[in-house]
């Protein structure tokens, strides 16, 4: 297959393929029927939107897809890609079914559908496979979430990540904790880390946190890993009760986050602070609304938007009006798509290689994330960083770093 992706060329390829392997090709127009008015536009630029929307990652995958489609809709509504004469973006949807091998197969499909770029694929494991498959065809691939640092920086020119990886998140997490602790007169010293250990995400996180915290004068008394899914946190609560740490640092997915925080509350376990790093539930509006007591004063270092940007708040209203949860998956995928669109504008072309060039040299600042102007080194946006939030009342407020803070931390609580 050629790397050339001009629409005409793609159609030739497609016809050739239909001739070659006729099976099922009559219905091979994947995923466009949801947007029929767009699909028929002549000059549309195809964008692969690839997430695990079925299987065990379905919730996060679905949120990502929702965010990405939202961005595409907005771009089209405001006149498409102007540098391409107002060409509309046409999403080509892919479902990785929560399996890496299916993710890779979907990339092949997207390639033949002639996508100019791909956004995806939420999890680190799947993103590793999809970026690699996309690299074969030189398809620019923006990783929306996938926080594993090994996704970027393994030499794939096509692979970019707009958001932060583990390294930065834990570094900022430690810095934020130091800042908050200092402001309160350093009451916290002893720490317990609770993390999921079934996927790369939690397993890496715990190790990196420990490495960062100890030189800063904290003492990690205990690290408590648990599997995902997990049914019961009472043991962990009891252990924490016995250890009596100053700060508890949890790191896991939404379900475990909810169960963990509720268990702490039920077991009357308290600490000076709960400070999660990529906590599943801690900075999720859904959780805050449903269990305000369990969420009270929980802090979380996580992906977040710049609370000073009205666009973010507007989007939040829109998402919630649609009955969806405004979670990090939504705005990360949303921003990734916006970034790809901006790169197309800069490239003035839907050519894969030119988009890659434009992404690599991007200085985009039209987003609402707290990242500043984009600067890419080895595929990673070096300005990307998480923020530290705290649930105060029924709101999620940013408490660190001070440049973005909307409120002062309530600590110790």
């Amino acid at each position: 297959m050629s790397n050339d992706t001009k629409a005409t060329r793609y159609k030739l390829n497609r016809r050739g393929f239909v001739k070659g392997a006729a099976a099922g090709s009559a219905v091979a127009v994947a995923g466009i029927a949801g947007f029929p008015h767009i699909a028929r536009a002549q000059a549309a630029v195809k964008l692969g939107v690839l997430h695990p929307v079925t299987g065990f990652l379905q919730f996060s995958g679905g949120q990502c897809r929702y965010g990405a489609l939202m961005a595409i809709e907005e771009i089209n509504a405001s006149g498409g890609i102007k540098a391409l004469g107002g060409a509309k973006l046409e999403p080509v949807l892919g479902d990785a079914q929560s399996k890496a091998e299916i993710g890779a197969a979907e990339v092949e499909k997207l390639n033949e559908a002639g996508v100019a770029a791909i956004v995806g694929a939420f999890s680190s494991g799947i993103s590793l496979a999809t970026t690699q498959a996309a690299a074969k065809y030189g398809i620019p691939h923006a990783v929306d979430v996938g926080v594993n640092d090994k996704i970027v920086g393994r030499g794939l020119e096509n692979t970019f990540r707009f958001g932060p990886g583990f390294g930065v998140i834990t570094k900022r997490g430690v810095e934020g904790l130091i800042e908050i602790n200092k402001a309160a007169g350093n009451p916290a010293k002893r720490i317990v880390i609770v993390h999921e250990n079934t996927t790369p995400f939690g397993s890496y996180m715990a190790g990196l946190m420990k490495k960062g915290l100890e030189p800063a004068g904290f003492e990690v008394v205990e690290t408590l890993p648990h599997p995902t899914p997990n049914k019961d946190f009472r043991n962990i609560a009891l252990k924490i009760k016995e250890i009596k740490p100053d700060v508890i640092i949890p790191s896991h997915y939404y379900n475990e986050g909810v169960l963990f925080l509720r268990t702490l509350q039920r077991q009357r376990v308290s600490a000076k602070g709960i400070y999660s790093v990529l906590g599943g539930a801690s900075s999720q509006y859904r959780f805050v609304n449903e269990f305000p007591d369990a969420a009270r004063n929980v802090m979380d270092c996580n992906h977040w938007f710049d609370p000073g940007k009205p666009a973010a708040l507007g989007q939040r209203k829109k998402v919630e009006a649609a009955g969806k949860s405004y979670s990090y998956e939504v705005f990360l995928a949303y921003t990734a798509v916006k970034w790809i669109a901006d790169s197309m504008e800069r490239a003035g072309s839907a050519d894969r290689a030119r988009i890659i060039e434009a992404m690599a040299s991007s200085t985009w600042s039209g987003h609402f994330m707290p990242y500043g102007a984009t600067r890419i080194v080895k595929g990673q946006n070096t300005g990307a960083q998480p923020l530290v939030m705290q649930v105060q009342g029924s709101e999620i407020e940013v408490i660190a770093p001070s440049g973005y803070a909307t409120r002062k931390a309530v600590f110790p609580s």
Partner: protein
Amino acid sequence: MNGFAKSHLGWLLLAAALLAVPVFVKSGRWIEFIELTLFVAVLGQGWNILGGYGGQYSFGHALFFGTGAYIQALLQFKYGVSPWIAMWFAVSGGVLVGLFVGYLSFRYGLRGSYFALITLAFAEAFHVVARSFISITEGGRGVQLALNRDPDQAIALFQFTFADPFLKSYGYYYVILALLMIAYGATWWMERSRFGAQLVALRENEDAAEALGINTFRTKMAAICMSAAITSSSGIYYVQKFLFVDPAIAYGPTKSVEALFAPIIGGLGTVLGPLVGSVFIHGLSEVTREAIDAVWGARPGVDLILFGIILVLVLGFAPKGLVGLAEAAWRRVARGGKAQR
């Protein structure tokens, strides 16, 4: 049994067709589709040896896939062993796990649901171990192999993603095809050997088999080893292609289910059953997905609802699998033909 040569010819034609796939399929998408189908067909043939021919239904074949994948990945990751050497250890490791699980289960005479449940339990135990012993297995982080981008090293490192155009497009296809041919050749041989006859006999009736001089314990042990060897070989392909394995990929229930679906749908205890089943399952899921997408737009889950319903229907109408259904139809046609004559 009309014509040994005829069935021989069929096999040769099938093999030739598979070898020649790159000649008439130029689409990366369809090559990938065929690759995945063959991958599950290999996984399923492993299961079929023990479950289809031997009648010992395992719910934990991920044990062998996962062990093969982990050994293949870890030897390279930790000790820089060449993938071409690691693969022999991967298969041997799978066989060792087979010996271990088989010895315990068969020594204590577990059959039927009990055997199914113990394999399930062993797979889960391996899952927990892979997750928990971080110093050995890297734990939940998984094992990620370095990506080779040097085309000259493609063969030496058994990584074809950035190889020359042909290898890049078809390299992994021929890897899985080679594994398929070995697995299916071995099964074909087995079906025509004393070992195969004895294995089938003990599936049909263990007491009678024992009375007729068959060492049922040893036959079952041999079957689980062969089964493990084939299934673990699919782990080699997986790791070399995706360069990543973690506990859930290796030992989660997904692979165990995939392994048993294909042969049961296709036809238990037949050489072609797992391949036919895998083609059917993948074809069906592709068609349902594309059809739903085309008429209704992307609706996550609907394709799988349809898939599940069709699956249950197929089971209802073809309890002996698709190969069984085809045979019955063939017999009817043949009988009809004779009657006319």
